[in-house]
């Protein structure tokens, strides 16, 4: 388990520090001149007649931290699948910045373009050590040839140290990732996302299975990332959302039901009906 009792203040400081390197919002290739990093326009996806997404339209601003909530089956995970290229939309369009049509790219290409994704179930490479997990995720060339010749540079080592401090797994760096606790795996996966240096992070239930203390730490971490990265967080934990959210989008039956601050959507009668009231 996490050493939460000791030197908490110290670790908190490292989170608040300058570690999640800044300046990643303006990578070449992504045109964000209109202040939006992601546009979903009129997207529909059906599986065997079931409409998982029904003319969904949504946009995320640069540096925004957006929370997505909604009952099970509302299409939250399908939406992430469409953005990351795992599922193709039947109709509608998804753009990264002003110019990149996500429908034209594979999962791997979309990841390289700068969209990172954390899965609902924490997914790390269990047979490798914590450090090796981060090494694989580090931004850099992805070709077979490059992987055969890869050597870790001093700069990359520093970056890994930085990330290990950030996700508080410094002491576990040589440990096999499969032996970490559930919460630690969640953090490792978030660390791997950051190692990719994405502009947009999609986090599917990042605090599921975490203790209250771990949840609190994660909220702090996400708040430090906000502004430097754009984030889209799917969660069910309302307290967690209350602690991080600016703007909340409520999905229901594959479309946006309501959008606004948490207080606003919680007061919305349609939202109460489909989700919160249950």
């Amino acid at each position, binding site marked *: 388990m996490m050493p939460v009792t000791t030197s908490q203040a110290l670790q908190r400081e490292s989170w608040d520090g300058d570690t999640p390197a800044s300046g990643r919002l303006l990578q070449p290739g992504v045109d964000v001149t209109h202040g939006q990093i992601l546009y979903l326009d009129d997207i529909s996806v059906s599986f065997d007649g079931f409409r998982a997404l029904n003319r969904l339209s949504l946009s995320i601003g640069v540096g925004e931290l957006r929370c997505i909530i909604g009952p099970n089956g509302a299409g939250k995970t399908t939406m992430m699948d469409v953005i*990351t290229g*795992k599922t193709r939309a039947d109709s509608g369009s998804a753009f990264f910045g002003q110019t990149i049509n996500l429908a034209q790219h*594979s*999962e*791997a*290409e979309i*990841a*390289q373009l700068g969209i*990172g*994704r954390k*899965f609902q179930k924490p*997914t*790390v*490479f*269990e*047979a*490798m050590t914590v450090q*090796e997990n981060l*090494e*694989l*995720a580090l931004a850099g060339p*992805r*070709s*077979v040839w490059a*992987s*055969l010749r*890869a050597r870790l540079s001093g700069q990359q080592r520093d970056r890994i140290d930085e990330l290990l401090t950030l996700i508080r797994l410094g002491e576990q760096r040589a440990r*096999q990732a499969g*032996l970490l606790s559930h919460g630690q795996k969640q953090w490792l996966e978030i660390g*791997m996302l950051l190692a*990719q240096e994405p502009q947009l992070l999609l986090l599917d239930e990042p605090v599921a299975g975490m203790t209250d203390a771990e949840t609190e730490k994660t909220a702090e971490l996400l708040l430090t990332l906000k502004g430097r990265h754009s984030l889209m967080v799917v969660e069910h934990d309302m307290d967690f959302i209350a602690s991080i959210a600016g703007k909340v989008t409520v999905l229901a039956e594959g479309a946006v039901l309501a959008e606004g601050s948490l207080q606003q959507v919680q007061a919305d009668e349609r939202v109460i009906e489909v989700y919160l009231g249950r």
Partner: protein
Amino acid sequence: MQTALSLRLATRLGPQPLKLAGGAALAVLLAMPALHLWTDPASSLHVSAYTLTLVGKILCYAIVALAMDLVWGYTGLLSLGHGLFFALGGYGMGMYLMRAIGHDGNYQSDLPDFMVFLDWKTLPWFWQGSEHLAWALCLAVGVPGLLALVFGWLAFRSRIKGVYFSIMTQALTYAAMLLFFRNETGFGGNNGFTDFKRILGYGIAAPGTRATLFLLTVLLLVAALAAGFWLVNSKFGRILTAIRDAESRLMFCGYNPLYYKLFIWVASAMLCGLAGALYVPQVGIINPGEMSPANSIEIAIWVAVGGRGSLIGPVLGAGFINAAKSWFTVAFPEYWLFFLGGLFIATTLFLPRGLLGLLRRHKEKA
């Protein structure tokens, strides 16, 4: 009980003794051709032609097991058609050996005997140039490589995985076997290629030739182990295990698994082809039986019994099972398949990490 036993063994035999054992095994293997050539046949130190050929054959199998483990143990692609690549390599070399017979065949023709027998007038286009050993070796490595490239490209691009992939590889080797069994396809039908006489002008059964082929096989195995060691310890190797354990995570890290799978798949097929090319002159025959689905399944058993996901495991497995086989099929021929099946079940149940798991210190302990 099984854990206790393996733990006790593991504490007694650390990695150091394993290295020593490996070194000793290599020394014995290197000494064998010398003992075959330069000792008196009556002496107890003499290595007979039979023993030398048998061990040489098993070493070829060990190379195949190693190649199989790179795609199965490390990358998680269970191929049930690796025997095909091995046999194709064997056929490439076999045709050179047929051509090297020259006019000494039964029909004293330019063409190999089976072609005269089937009333062929000219050599089919694909066998042109096979009288040169260098070209035959290119065929032995290139044809399995090319086939693996085309098959792998189609399969991996369509994201065929798991049992579906295994079944397709099995079907592939079966289809190839049927093709090679036919007389009109130019591969010698069910007799295949045999009755070899010489290689590069040297008698195929001469002690010097046998010793040289044996030595080359040992060198190829050592080279394959060294290359495998370098490969699996590189970043490339870690990406292979990432494909095995969490392929979608890897894709969302920005890696396209297609090229990684294709690279290791083709490399594995080419290594099998080379092993086949060394196998045929030592054993003296190649026929479509090598492509039978059962042979390919046996390769998977060698790897499982030896311990997949390690480099030494499959070599041990191939050695152990084939040594047992050559003894069993003489002593109790009708029970061999029962023994093999029982061994496979026992390994799956009690030794998930194979024989090597018994010998190795458990990593989790540390």
